[in-house]
């Protein structure tokens, strides 16, 4: 196969590319330049698009003896990931930009271009497994390393995209990947993992949103509407957040308070006790199916965060192609905008974007704000 290996400059994508070469594929390495403003973003040590990362990727490609190019996808990334991220927060939702990037950049813009240029597949260093289900179909499964499993952020891939996805690290533990990188002489063997949001180099999401959206001060209130404090912008708060609320007085019952609700339009942040965060069902929109779309009622598990615990769940599609997911064990702190990913054992069935949540303490579904 002709394989295009996306190489971030990190250890995972370097070993993934090496394994694709070993498998006998004709491999070309491509580093995706995603930062719109290289001068500022590439200074950060934590971003994933620094000049140093591009060089590290190039050195890995040199060692593997494969051609290497840099593709400038900054414009696509800005429009499809960064602007979406800002707009979602502005609307009081909590987006996952990695998932958006996989959906719209890596396995859309990059994959489409690769296929047009004559490649058969795109290879990445994601920890997930693609399993041949026989009859030509391919299934997406959790990685062998539960601590690194990234199937959640790949839950947006369609069956068609999976046909052309190669994840050579899915059956390997992260520690073994590092060791293999060292054995292969890859200089990135000891490079720290990237964390956080790649386009927020200093890791300060609240500051990034403040710069993007401007100050929008408002009140922090409890469930009764009593004003407990002030904030500089509701978008800097996430449902389930406990730290950084800056409330002087403790709650009357002495229990810690959490963000229950974020309403940027009303500039209101509502806080309350932990048990008020429990969610027993979610309504998802924009479902994506990694295999055949859901037919009747689904029994399996659901995961609501990249590193969240899966919980037993029941799901069904509605006539309007939304997804209703009953969580058979309540999940704490689910925010609209997150993805709900459905699993049948280790197999990813599909995903949807959470639009509303149903609290355990309430009979009414709460709408995400549009």
């Amino acid at each position, binding site marked *: 196969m002709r394989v295009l290996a996306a190489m971030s400059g990190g250890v995972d994508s370097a070993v993934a590319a090496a394994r694709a070469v070993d498998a006998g594929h*004709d491999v*070309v390495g491509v*580093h995706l*330049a995603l930062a719109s403003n*290289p001068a500022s973003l590439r200074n950060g040590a934590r971003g994933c698009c620094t*000049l140093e990362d*591009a060089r590290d990727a*190039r050195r890995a490609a040199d060692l593997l003896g494969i*051609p290497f*190019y*840099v*593709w*400038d996808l*900054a414009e696509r990334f800005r429009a*499809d990931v960064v602007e979406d991220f800002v707009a979602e927060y502005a609307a009081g939702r909590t987006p996952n930009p990695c998932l958006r990037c996989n959906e*719209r950049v890596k396995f*859309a*813009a990059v994959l*489409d*271009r690769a*296929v*047009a*240029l*004559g490649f058969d597949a795109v290879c990445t260093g994601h920890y997930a497994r693609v399993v041949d289900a026989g009859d030509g179909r391919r299934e997406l499964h959790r990685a062998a390393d539960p601590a690194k499993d990234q199937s959640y952020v790949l839950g947006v891939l369609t069956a068609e995209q999976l046909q052309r996805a190669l994840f050579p690290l899915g059956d390997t533990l992260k520690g073994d990947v590092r060791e293999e990188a060292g054995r292969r002489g890859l200089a990135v063997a000891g490079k720290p993992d990237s964390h956080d949001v790649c386009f927020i180099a200093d890791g300060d999401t609240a500051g990034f949103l403040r710069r993007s959206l401007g100050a929008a001060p408002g009140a922090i209130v409890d469930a009764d509407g009593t004003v407990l404090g002030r904030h500089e912008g509701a978008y800097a708060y996430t449902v389930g957040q406990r730290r950084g609320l800056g409330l002087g007085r403790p709650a009357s019952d002495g229990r810690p308070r959490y963000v229950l609700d974020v309403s940027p339009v009303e500039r209101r942040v509502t806080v309350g006790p932990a048990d008020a965060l429990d969610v027993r069902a979610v309504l998802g929109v*924009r479902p994506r199916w990694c295999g055949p779309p859901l037919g009747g009622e689904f029994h399996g598990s659901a995961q609501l965060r990249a590193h969240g615990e899966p919980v037993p769940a029941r799901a069904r599609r509605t006539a309007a192609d939304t997804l209703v997911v009953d969580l058979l064990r309540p999940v704490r702190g689910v925010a609209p905008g997150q993805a709900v990913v459905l699993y049948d054992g280790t197999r990813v069935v599909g995903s949807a974007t959470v639009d509303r949540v149903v609290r355990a303490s309430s009979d009414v579904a709460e709408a995400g704000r549009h």
Partner: protein
Amino acid sequence: MSVPRTYLDHAATTPMRAEVLEVVTARMRVLGNASSLHASGRAARRVVEESREALAAALGARPSEVVFTSGGTEADNLAVKGLYRARQAADPRRRRVLASAVEHHAVLDPVKWLADAEEAQVEWLPVDPYGRVDVAALRASLAADPGSVALVTVMWANNEVGTVQPLSDVVSAAHEHGVPVHSDAVQAVGQLPVDFAASGLDAMTVSGHKVGGPLGVGALVVRREVELVPLLHGGGQERDVRSGTLDTPAIAGLSAAVVASQEEQPESGQRLAALRDDLVAAVLGAVPDAVLNGDPSGDLRRRLPGNAHFSFPGCEGDSLLLLLDARGIECSTGSACSAGVAQPSHVLVAMGAGPELARASLRFSLGHTSTVADVEALARAIGPVVERARLAGVVNTRKVSA
């Protein structure tokens, strides 16, 4: 994966000439610092000075006018900054730098740096749609206030689109006002007749590796009476303008390469022009809507004989490069950048091309090792490659549905 390579990127660098390789490696085996007074030093000094004399003779300059540097970029920096500072020191009113908008980055960036750091006032001279500098604009700029101009810098021939600049007009316009002129002749040597004395230039940049010489060596040819403030201070080599232990093997190689290419030029210029005309015809035959950028005439007085530069509407330059590379054909999308991210070329933008067309461009450049077989290989590949790149181009501009 071993595909036979077709090298069509001589404007980036050229294969080293066999005789140059001999000269360089032979000298590398020999001890000697050309500044030392003992026998080894004298032997090295002799090689340096003989190289200087041969280089000067080949370029129509006097030996004392040759300042060896680490390459074209250093020579350009020395000319631009050195001239500006010396002229400014002599008369503080001289703050204006007049430069063509299509200069190589080795000139462009020092000029911008002078503006940012030393209060130079830069005027970018416009070019016509072929990339040829507007001499009337230069004359008007000079005449507006001749006493405030520090220098004029206009390249001999453009590295991207191959356009030859009207240098004698530029020189006579500047000299009417006593303003010195520098020219980057890195692409011109070996391709065009280059004679420093006849050009009337005050300073001229040449480079080794563009003419079959070694990398990392070049020279600024600069008239004796022109004052330059040095960039590198130290041992006082090169008439105190450029300090640093002389790289004897590289200097010997540079000289041998320039001599050989100047000797060959009358014949090779014609040969490359004919080969280039075949290449242009083959590309336009295979891709009828390809656009030839730069001067369409094959005349050596207007275009570098080894240069062919196209835009392929609907394609991304880097898609074309990837596909051609996979077929063993090596060319360039224009100016390379350290991060490898393609920016629309400032040359094409100055010529009036939109960013779309600028990103869709490729440069093929011929040199001393180019053959008919190279052109034939490109002729076979370019049609299917453009067809494929167009598919990718269309895909890439498609908006992903939410």
